[in-house]
């Protein structure tokens, strides 16, 4: 077996929310789990996030939002990925996401939501099991 390609993850902050402790911790933590991570910084529109995903050729997009704008922003990212024919990119989310919004987000193509208290290794394991390296 040849050298395995590293999984590439884009950690993104859609919208104006400035709470980036979780996003930064995850970006640094997944790096230690052997993945390549790119952190977008704050205030990204869904368009900018998808553009970054294309440019960086990522396998996974991790969206973090604590402002309550996830119901618009997360599905919009999935939609734009579809337009770019990149539906094989795994989209996961985290932040302050009320329980009742999770089924809606999953239906829209966000495959998993990781709330507060999630361990880095749980996210890493999920990504390893579900990402389809491109």
């Amino acid at each position: 077996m040849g050298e395995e390609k590293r999984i590439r993850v884009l950690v993104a902050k859609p919208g104006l929310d400035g709470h980036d402790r979780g996003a930064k911790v995850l970006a640094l933590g997944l790096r230690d789990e052997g993945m390549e991570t790119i952190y977008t910084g704050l205030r990204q529109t869904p368009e900018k996030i998808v553009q970054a995903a294309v440019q960086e050729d990522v396998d996974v997009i991790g969206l973090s939002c604590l402002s309550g704008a996830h119901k618009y922003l997360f599905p919009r990212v999935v939609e734009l990925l579809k337009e770019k024919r990149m539906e094989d990119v795994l989209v996961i989310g985290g932040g302050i996401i009320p329980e009742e919004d999770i089924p809606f987000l999953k239906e829209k193509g966000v495959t998993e939501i990781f709330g507060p208290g999630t361990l880095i290794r749980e996210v890493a394991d999920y990504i390893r099991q579900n990402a389809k390296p491109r």
Partner: protein
Amino acid sequence: MTEEMEEIKKRKQEWEEKVLKPAVDRFGLKESPSKFYSPADVEDFDFLTKVGFPGEYPFTAGTYAMSPYMPAPRRGIPGASGLVRAANYSGYGTAEDTRDYYKQMQARGQRGGPNLAFDLPTQCGYDSDNPLVRGDVGKTGVAVDTLKDFEVIYEPFQGELELDRIASNFTINAPANIIMAMYFALAEKRAVPLDKLRATPQNDILKEFIARGTYIFPPRPSMRMVRDSIVFLGQHCPHININQLGGYHIRGAGANREHDLAFSMAILVAYLQEGVNAGLDVDSFAPRFTVNAFGGSMEFFKEIAFQRAARRMWARILREKFGAKKDRSMLLRQAGLFANMGNENCTVQRPLNNLTRSMVGAIASALSGGMPIPYPPYDEPLGLGWSLEASQLSEDGFKILQYEAKLTEVRDPLAGSYYVESLTDEIEEAAWKELDRIEAMGGAVAAIESGYMQREIAKSALARQRRIESGEDSIVGVNCFVGESELEVETTRLVPHPYDPVRREEAEERQIRSLAEVKRNRDSHAVAQLLSELKDKAKKEDENLIPHFIECVKAYVTEQEMCDVLREVFGEYQPVAL
């Protein structure tokens, strides 16, 4: 060294060998899981220089001589007051939604001014109709685009609750001067003079770059805005707190305790210097700086010591670095909550446990000189807004600790505790060391421009996460004591929230429509003229922009229109890489 101290040290050594060690050995441990502090741990302790009396330098024992939070003597039994405090951070959807919320709360007995939460577009200088901010309008707070929104929000605050009879709080930071200009213009319309206004703007932009994220302009032009507020508010508004420093945000973003204290103090120093550079006497404006609850974590004694260290350090900075003469300049004034649990330590798992945690924080607050407020309400992390049930529990918890447990009867009850005094020294010393390092870098602004503070905070946040993952740090119900045998205690909400979820869904569209109407009805020629004047004035470093902001808002120039002009002149902040 006194004979007594010699004796104590000798006895301590004997105790460690003859009493402690056998106990440790008996349980097969490497070291004792608990510690004991004696006078030997605070050898150079001097009551008058380290603690002093409450309300006297160095203010370790308390900002004021008496607890400002003692219940007034009452006759008979206090009636049900309901949720009387207006201080709950609030703001929902559109201006109309927030107006109606305050009307409802007033019907429940709330008095006093609003503590306004603004939505993120407002905090970041964008109008509601900007496609870039779609999804964020009216979330986390109320959308304010023009003076019209302020006029609507403040409809319930008239007559007995007129602007000169209430105090308003604004968590606004980057566009603080524009929002204050709206408040001034509203006051003018209602014939309330500026010198009668009471308000506290959170006008602490530097911590936005490292902790909270609602920056607009780069640090240096942002500091000019801070200078403008120090000068303008100093001249015209004697009852407005010039700046409320963020306080807990830096810790919330992940900073450790020592960095939190040092970064906060470095930021304070930068603001004070800005006023001094403008030619003001430090005693003329320093008394009007306040702090929103400082620090915060579940480590009870350390947070109490942190508060004591912070008071002492603040006082020393004012006196020694800035040569302040007035005691009032040296006071670290906080809104009410002092030591606290730290909002970020709320768990979404078994959320009622947050009530227990917030009670721990409330007790720490009281023992460090503040009000025993169990904060935040337990449902903070659910992302649904605080329920009235949770707010009521917070309110009652406060009353129980005050009236039943009588926690506010004694000032600084832990003064003289060998442990707490030694902790206080330790935290202060570490923070001074870090503050000196930052000063050597050129101060807070330079340490933010280089990304030093941001990187240190991210490092500490990751370190904390590692400790949680390894089990070194425990969070009950999250990384320990979880499993099938544990009950998942859930919470239900039976009282409907005052903000109707249907209105919430439609808020963005309604706000965009009302902004369009304001734009249709204003004199667009005047708007263009004012904006072009703003550009000229912004280019002149010495110009104070607040008077012109007031003219702009009166003509219903939008917040973003003003911010866009400033973006052109000042540039926009670009975050540093991790």
